């Protein structure tokens, strides 16, 4: 287990701060499918944002703007919870047409 920190360097009880949490690139876990949103259907209820287990739903202020390529692991939860059927899982290689959002951020920040 190289690269892991010794007990002395861990905060009591394992409290994590955003700054000292490592950022595993869960986006690399996707197995061939990714979510895409049809914005014309999106009512911005943000259930996808509430449910996403990897905080991969991107917002600007309180408006849905897309998915975070770095974190989205393709779990399909967003598509399952979307009450208006605006999110669909598509093959990874699907091109992103206009009105469908997919954002990639290699830095993960």
């Amino acid at each position: 287990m190289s690269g892991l920190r010794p007990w002395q360097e861990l905060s009591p009880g394992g409290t994590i701060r955003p700054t000292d949490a490592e950022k595993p690139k869960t986006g690399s876990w996707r197995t061939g499918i990714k979510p895409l949103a049809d914005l014309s259907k999106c009512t911005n209820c943000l259930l996808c944002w509430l449910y996403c287990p990897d905080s991969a739903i991107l917002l600007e202020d309180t408006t849905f703007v897309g998915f975070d390529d770095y974190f989205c692991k393709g779990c399909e939860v967003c598509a399952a919870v979307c009450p208006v059927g605006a999110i669909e899982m598509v093959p990874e290689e699907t091109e992103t047409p206009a009105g469908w959002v997919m954002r990639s951020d290699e830095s993960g920040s």
Partner: protein
Amino acid sequence: MSAFAQETLVGDFSDLKSPLSEEEALVQADLCLQCGGVYATAPCTVACPADVDVPTFIAQIAAGDPGAAALTLFEQNILAASCARVCPVEVLCQASCVMNSQDEAAIEIGRLQRFAADWAYANGVAPRKKAAANGHKVAVIGAGPAGLACAGELAARGYTVTVYDERAEVGGLIRYAIAPFRQHTEPLPAEAVALAGLGVEIKLEAKIDSKKALAEIEKEVEAIFLGIGYGEDVLVKTPGDDLEGVWESLPFIEALKDGNPPQVGRRAAVIGGGNTAMDVAREALRLGAEEVTVLYRRTQAEMPAFYHEYEEALEEGVVFKWLTLPVAFKGENGRLTAVECQPMKLGEPDDSGRRRPEPIEGADFDLPVDTIVKAIGQRPREEFLSLIDGLELEWGRIKINPETGQTTNPKYFAAGDAINGGATAVQAVGGAKVAVAGIEAFVQGEKR
């Protein structure tokens, strides 16, 4: 429902949906996901016939500003206070709420609306600002939801509006035909005051029953809005109609709401399967009837009443007899004692696509009752409509251009039950807004 629970209903005409306290309203408002925004419109707003911006008014309540919430409501629905009580939110906004998809209860939009609108009236918030008079005059016939909404909208835009109604109080069916446990009279008086504040003149007990009377109004104004609704109950002659204890639904409810509650006796029956039949059945329970039976000639599947209304009636102890056609009322000494019923079976589909009920020969029976209320529907005001030149009807309904609310007589516009055959108050408001736009275009265009 147990006899005990049923007994507790007797005399209880309090609101089925209690008002929210300030704290409850805040909690409820905070639950709203605030759908809507830059993409698709929030489903609740889409579902609202009056286009109320639901997420915004709820956000304003959540932010602790019920006054602002009320103004958001009034912007689209000047009768927001009444509609909050009588809207079938279960099948409109609340049915479309995203929470339903989460196995959660829908946000209580109706009660939140009531909270904000009532707060506004209690705190002297005027629903709309009055624009400067624009010199145009419009008459509104009928002070029901369609007429009041039309009058208020026009007045707020600077029109000089006079409303005529044959009854002693405003509100139309809200006042006279909606069950008292939904809305008694409040907040109609406050809404009437608010309309008066916008300059609307309301002439009550002003029945227009001649071409001459109508011509006088026509002379005064540039357009006339018909918010006349439907008239009396559908005429269905049944042997024994003149017995004491036989009622038609509108006089029955009106008597109740006017403070002269009908004596229903121990057993009551209601004929019909619509929302009015459900209301009357539940009123009969509250008036002390121990057994209330709804007689409907088709089955539950064909009932026009909202399913939740049927369910609530069932829960309160109303008994339903399907495929049962009342054929005669029997009595002793001029007083109703029983209704003769003809059981039916469903045959081939009729013109309406519903399977036609056919009598089962020899199966007829007598159901002992003390009161029977016929709630089969209303009939069009054909007599009044015949006074207007060039007005075309379809199935007894006023024919309009759905884009403008304009009738086939260009000076006349219409909305509400008179054009849709009997629907909800909020649909009347929605239709009135269409007509207001139509009237504006009509009178402004004429001037130009």
